[in-house]
Each structure stands twice: as C-alpha cells, then as structure tokens.
C-alpha cells in the first residue's frame, strides 16, 4: 500500500521505458562519446521518474502519525535509486554496454541525490528541475564530445557526471550528493 501511495506503478513503467530506450539507443549510436552522453541522459530520465513518487500525500497527516518517517523516507530513496541502477545496468547484459558500470552507478547515485534534494526544497513535482538544470549546464559548458576538464579539482567536481569512471573527485561529488539528498529528504520530507 505504501508503494501504491507513492505512485510506484507509473514510475516503474517510466523507468522501464528508459531502460528499453537505453538499449535501443545503444544500437543506434556508434560514436563512443555519444554513447556515454546518451547513457547519462537516460540515467537522468530514469532518476527524474522517481520524483513524483517522493511526494507525501498529506504532509501534516504524515507528520501526525506515529510511524517514524525519516528512516522510511531514506529507505524509499535508496531503494528507488538502486532499482533504477539495477534496471539500467541490466541493459548491459542484454545489449551492448553504453558506458562503464561504474560510471552509470555513480551517475544514478548522484542524480538520485539531486532529485531528493529537489524534492526537499522545491517539492516533489518540481524536484526534477535540480538534476535536469545541472546536467544541462554541464553538457553545454563541458561538451561531452570533447574531453571533460581534468585539472582544477573544483571543475572536476562540478562536471562530475561527464567525468570518466576513474576520476576520484567526481565520484566523491556524486557520493556527497547522494548522501546529502537522502538525508535531506529523510529529515525534511517533500516540501508540499
């Protein structure tokens, strides 16, 4: 019932669509950098799909109940992110791999964290704004067709999503976002 109250079926369908889309684009796009880009964008789509599910139906009602919500909300985010990751990674077994598993894992973790932050600050409906705008800015500023900036550490962290899997600063950034997002959403809940 909890699952249904959070609109899981629609989300699951959307994420499944993304996984299928990822597989299909894997067949269509050859350019290696293009594949990485597409993998990132599909990960973005899949993580934004979990945004509506982060809405609490009635905030005050939730707060008044005796259940401890923070751990449940934290679990919700974690499970949702892991499911997305699992589905996307599974396409690697079915089709050809678009981007390294480490890269996909990092991107999904970081983007999920961003969606959770967005839900905590802007509300579940507007939550996708945060990851979408950040990704879009990164894609324009550091075009994925070229090489992402490698030297100043802060630049690597800001463009974490287009960095190769071995860039440690990028992984750190993604982990920080994931943890911060989970904590923020668990503590604050969705704004509306």
């Amino acid at each position, binding site marked *: 019932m909890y699952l249904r109250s959070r609109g899981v079926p629609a989300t699951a369908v959307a994420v499944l669509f993304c996984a299928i889309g990822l597989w299909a684009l894997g067949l269509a796009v050859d350019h290696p950098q293009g594949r990485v880009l*597409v993998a990132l964008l599909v990960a973005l*789509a899949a993580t934004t799909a979990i945004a509506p599910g982060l809405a609490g139906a009635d905030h005050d009602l939730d707060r008044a109940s005796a259940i401890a919500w923070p751990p449940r909300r934290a679990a919700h985010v974690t499970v949702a992110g892991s499911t997305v990751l699992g589905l996307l990674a599974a396409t690697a077994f079915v089709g050809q791999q678009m981007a390294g598993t480490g890269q996909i894992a990092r991107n999904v973790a970081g983007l999920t964290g961003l969606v959770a932050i967005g839900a905590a600050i802007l509300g579940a*409906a507007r939550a996708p*704004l945060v990851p979408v705008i950040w990704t879009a800015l990164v*894609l324009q500023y550091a075009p994925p067709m070229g090489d992402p900036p490698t030297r100043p550490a802060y630049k690597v962290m800001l463009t974490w999503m287009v960095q190769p899997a071995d860039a440690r600063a990028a992984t750190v950034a993604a982990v920080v976002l994931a943890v911060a997002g989970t904590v923020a959403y668990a503590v604050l809940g969705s704004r509306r």
Partner: protein
Amino acid sequence: MGARILRIELRRSVALWAALVIAATGVFVLFASNEPYGSWMQLVIVSRDIMQLTWPLGLAAGAWQALRERRSKVEELMATTPRPRWQRVLPVANAMAIAAVTAYLVMLAGAAGHVRHIDGYFPLGAIPLIALGALAMVGAVWLGQAVGALLPSPLTAPMLAVVGFVGLAVSPMIVAQDSRDRGAVLLFPYLQGPRDGGFALQMLSTRANLVQALWFAALAATGLAVFAASRPGTRLAALLPVVLGAAIAVPAMPRTLSDAWVEDRRATEAVCTDDEPTVCISRLHSYALDSMRGPAREALSVLARKLPPGPTRVLVGNDGTPGPQPADTLIVYVTLIESTEYTADTLVEIMLDGAGVPPCAGQVGIDPNEPATRELPPEPDPRYVGARQAVTAWLLDRRPPPATGAKEEPEMALARQAFDTLAALPLDEQRARVAAWRDAERACSDGDRLELLVGTGETG
C-alpha cells in the same frame, strides 16, 4: 476581454517563471565561454547553437503549464462552460509564446555584455537568425503544451526535457553520419556555424532562412493546433501543418551546410573616414576606425617627410593576401580579431613596417602559387628581414636596440649594422637608397635587399 485574460495568464501562470529559468540558464552558458565574442554574429550563432539546451527546456515549460488543468482539478468545471476549448487555451498559449520569445531575447541582451566590441558591426543577416530563434522557441513551448495536454502527468515535463536533450544531441550524429556537411541539420532548432569559424564574414542564405522559417512555423502551428484540439479526430487533423511543412521544407533544404552559409558582402565593404587623410577599414572592424585616425595621420606624415612622395590614403586590411599596391595607398595589415588592444605607438610602428610595403611572399619563403600547407614555412632570409627592420627603424628614427640576452637573432644584428651604415650617409643618399629598396620591394624583384641599403651604392 481576451486581452484582459491574457494579462491575467501572463501574471499568474508559469509563463514568466519559465522565461526566467530559460533565460538565466542561457545567459549563464553564453557567459561561460572564456573568450568574449568577437562579433555580434558570433553571439547570435552561439545563442542559436545552445538551443540544444534551451529548446528542450521550452518543451518542458510548455508541458508543465499544460499540467495545470489536471493538477488544479478544474476540468469538471471547465466542461460545463460554453466557450470551446480552442478559445479557452488561446490566452495561455499566447502567454507561453510571449514568455518563450522574451526568454530568448533577454538571453541575447544579457549576453551582449560578453561581446568584445558592442559598437561593432551588427550584420543584417543576424536579424533573421534571431527571429527564427524566437520562432523555434515558440514552437518548443507550444509542442510542449500539446504533449502535456495529451499526457497530463508530473513525469511529462522532465521526461520531455531529457528526450529533447537526447534527441537534439543524437540528431547530428544520425543525420550527418556519412559526411559532416549535410544540410538536413538545418531542420533542427540549433544552428551550426560556418565550417571554418569565419562567423563574422558569413551569413545564412536567404533560401536557408526561408526554409527554416517555414519549418519552424509548421512545427509551432502543429503544437498549437494539437493543444487546442478537443477531440481525437481534430488532433489528428492538427498534424497537417507539420506534414505539409516537412513535405515542402525537406526537399527545399540546401543540400550541404556549406551551401547554406554565404558571404556577407556588406561586412567586407570599406568604410572610410570623411576627413583627410582618408583611412578605410572593412565594415566588420569599423569600431576600430577612430583609433586608426591618429596613427594613420602620423604614419603618412612620416612617409611624406622622409620618403616622398608618400601615400595619401590608408587602407586597413585584415586578410594576409597582398594584392597590387597602388602607390598612393598605404595598406596596413592589422589582425583585429585578437584580443590585444593596440596603442597608438604600436599602430604607427605596424603601419610603417617596411615603409608600408607588405613583404614579398617569395622572399619570406611562401610560394603564392602553392596551396598553404600545414608545415611551417622555411626560415626567411635573415638579410631580407634585417633590411626591412632597418628601413622601419630609419623611418621611426629609432636605432634597433642592441642584444640584451645571450643570443641575438641574426637579422637584428644585420638591421643594426644597416641602420648605422645609413645614418652615416648624407640625407639624400639615405633617401635614395631607401627609395631603391622600396621600389625593389614593391616589384618583388630578386636580389639582396640588404645590398641595396648598405652595399656599394650604385649611384653616388
């Protein structure tokens, strides 16, 4: 009454917020390029290029707005009102269109601060590009509203944005898979600039502009029609504009991208000063005209004094191909696109370099008949370069300074020697020798230039 409703929608719907977000991200990206934009045309082209980013955001904004009816649960009440759906949605569609155009124009205006020379040449060819950019954004929000009305779910807006990003990012790879030059990329809202990066000197051909205008208008019309349709049958009929548009635009599109970019002839026209001495510069760099006046006057007066008869006009050129040199014109080659700001003294030096005669290609090592190759040209003859430097120094009355470092370039030493030799001669002799040098240089004849200056003088 419709105008009043439009005003209410502008104020109360998400239109202006969406415009703000889109404009802000656009300005941010436009400013993020490290180098300021060298010309207005470059700014306009880049603003169209980043539609890979802003166009999907417009889609998402439209989809988000179209969610309003479902989110607010007003559908029940709306069903009992007499006004037909297409009249009902027209004000909010117009509000979103206004927001889209505003976002694009504000983005341009905001990034205008990043143009290096704001008073520079604003090409007429940029105006259709701007208009088409605005039209493409209108199409984005209307298409977004259409999709949002068909799929009223909070997932629609972000998904549409991401699908837009993916689609626009992947499209050039798919469309131009065989060659990078296919004209079909013009069907997409972003714009790829001319291949050689010569933004300032080119503009989009009229044919390309018209075809794009038709196609974008068809997209926008379809978006609006699908959004305003109330029944599935009408929605299907609303796809007609885009089908017609495709049927006309796809065949009419220029075959290759290189065909679509034509030379902007107005940019290379000469703009001259009204007063004497006449200084002419290409319109593209007309912002620099005023700064050329003083140095030009000085250079001409120096030449008139020391090496009569001197030229009376100055033509500031930018491309390095030397053409025939009329005797009364001093042609100066100054690269104006770069970021260096020239001081007046530097300009005078440049103008007087080689007494205003451009170096001969043959002597410098470049064969004008051979196509430019990637390899470095061979080292020019130091005697040749030394002679040129000596003449320049003689005109400026400035002895080439002695070497300060460990090793000195051979041409510097030669130049100093030549200068000293010349300075020891009587004035008439100096003048005669430099004049002989200039004649030889103008004719690009063979022979050792340095000999002319220091060698055994032929005529006494």
